[in-house]
């Protein structure tokens, strides 16, 4: 009897492993193994014909911290994340509320919000490049119509990063909207009515009921947005190439430059490891938080 139960349990565990195995194998092959290889590479110097690669310990990491570009790029990325994440989340939420409200031509509105999501980033960046053209670009033509003088959006350090941020938000908000839209549907209409009866206005209801209830979605979206704030750099290649003077350079772009432009894969590897560590840490914390916050469901 007891043996049967144990056998049964072992069999289930075996099934579990078998089910996970294929995905785990592929992940190991294309994520974990390369990540570990990267870690390994980061411990060696760059090998050239003159100097073969030698073990360097954590020297590459030390070099990074000593490089002022590292701090510029890290700071840029913090600003980039610090703006794109909350702003796209807020836009996504507003969009979801509107796309969920009963307004005329709702399908059009939903499609309009969502469409940027399905454009290739490269194509989107090419289009935006022209919007940002000083004088001639659509943005300057519109602001010019209201009497503003032309702005060299991508060409000055004050606006370059902001311009890049705009494109990211435009691209992402519609995607996140979908998740909010889905979550909104799971909130019973009763709650809104109960709140109305209790005298809660729209704002109170949103703040005291809706937002807390959407918290799990927000965390999910937040994690995604955070990953994207590191990941999404395609448009940099087209829009600013990190310029002017590093004003819009982001971490992954810099890694990319180091690896494929500077032929300096050890430092790129070290930087990659730093990013992975940071993200991994945040991921674990977030995951804990998600599990905790979803308890009441």
């Amino acid at each position, binding site marked *: 009897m007891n043996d049967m139960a144990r056998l049964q349990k072992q069999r289930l565990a075996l099934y579990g492993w078998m089910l996970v195995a294929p995905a785990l194998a592929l992940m190991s092959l294309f994520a974990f193994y390369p990540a570990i290889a990267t870690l390994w590479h980061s411990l060696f110097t760059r090998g050239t014909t003159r100097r073969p690669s030698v073990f360097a310990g954590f020297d590459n990491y030390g070099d990074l911290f000593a490089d002022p570009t590292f701090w510029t790029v890290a700071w840029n990325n913090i600003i980039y994340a610090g703006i794109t994440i909350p702003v796209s989340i807020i836009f996504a939420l507003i969009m979801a509320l509107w796309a969920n409200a009963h307004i005329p031509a709702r399908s059009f509105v939903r499609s309009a919000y969502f469409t940027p999501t399905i454009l290739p980033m490269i194509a989107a960046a090419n289009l935006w490049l022209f919007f940002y053209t000083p004088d001639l670009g659509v943005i300057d033509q519109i602001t010019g119509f209201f009497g503003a003088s032309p702005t060299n959006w991508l060409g000055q350090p004050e606006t370059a990063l902001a311009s890049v941020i705009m494109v990211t938000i435009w691209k992402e908000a519609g995607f996140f909207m979908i998740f909010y839209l889905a979550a909104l549907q799971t909130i019973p209409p009763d709650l809104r009515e109960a709140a*109305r009866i209790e*005298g809660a206005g729209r704002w109170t209801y949103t703040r005291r009921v809706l937002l807390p209830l959407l918290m799990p979605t927000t965390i999910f979206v937040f994690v995604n947005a955070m990953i994207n704030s590191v990941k999404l750099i395609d448009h940099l290649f087209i829009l600013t190439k990190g310029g002017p003077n590093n004003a819009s350079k982001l971490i992954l772009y810099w890694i990319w430059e180091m690896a494929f432009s500077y032929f300096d894969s050890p430092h790129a590897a070290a930087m990659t490891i730093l990013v992975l560590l940071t993200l991994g840490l945040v991921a674990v914390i977030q995951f804990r938080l998600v599990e905790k916050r979803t308890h009441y469901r």
Partner: protein
Amino acid sequence: MSAQSPFIQIKAVSRVFNGCNGVHDLSIDIPRGSFVVLLGPSGCGKSTTLRLIAGLETADQGTIAIDGKDVTNMPPSRRGLSMVFQSYALFPHLSVAENIIFGLKVRKTGKEEIRTRLDDALSVTGLAGYEDRKPAELSGGQRQRVALARAIVAGHPLCLMDEPLSNLDAKLRHSVRRDIRELQQRLGITVVYVTHDQTEAMSMADIVILMKDGRIEQAGNPADLYLKPATSFAAGFVGSPPMALIPASALPGDVIPAGLDMTKLTFGIRPEDLVLTTSADQSAWSIAATVTGSEFLGAETFVSVAIPGTEGATARLPGQVHIAPGTKVSLSWAGAAAHWFDGEDGHRLEPAMPRQTAQEPNTSIETDTAIPSL
């Protein structure tokens, strides 16, 4: 405020949704302090009526006044009422206490007062000690009481309840029914209560408003509804088992009261008014029927019978009765127990002179020996 002027006055209100499930030209007066139940099958408009009173819907036509104040176009929060939802609509992320005082906080009631009122509500509903729990950590009955507490905490004179017991099990429902009634009387508030369960309506209401297809079928106290159903629908809806409704064409001609047109006439008889006899002695006053089954409930037995050309009937017999299915019986009743309805529009007909029955039938089935078990 004069005693006569109704607390809630609904005048000629209509609300239509794409042609279905609305209410049409509805007028209701609800006296202060009464317990009013809106009763009816699903889709009859009872919930819409409640939502119109609440202000969750706005009337297309007509006016609604509460406490003498025209509230037709007022938002719910300014109507001075509270509501208990079928699903309870508790905020899952808030604790019991936070749920209860949600409205007080919205209205920026003072901290002190919130505390006092919360304690009151908690003790009245027996929830003391559960303040910090989340709704998910409560049983169904407890959640129901949280919803109730939230409804009474503000001290509004009007409380609307939308099928508040339908998610509880039968035993609990019975006790909560009594609690709610008691609470209503203690607080002296007016309750408008929606249900499709006629037992609930009959046991709780001062006034039952029976609705069908967005219109009022009958309004009155529970006894009126039971004893003098205004329509065949009301007759069939109220009472359990329901009143048997038999086309007059299936009856022996002698029992039809004079002056009624038997071609479009429905005869109604409550189960407890039916008399069963096993003998083949069919009289001019009785109908032939066949027993199809019986349910023993302890104090009484329901015997269902098939009558050719009808949907059948149920008789309520005291004590335990054994009748084998297939047994031929004849049915009879006291003349005064008969209800008559128009066969077409269903309204109640009062025959000027009920035809005299030959005699009060002998209660020929009284004990389980009367009919030999076959």
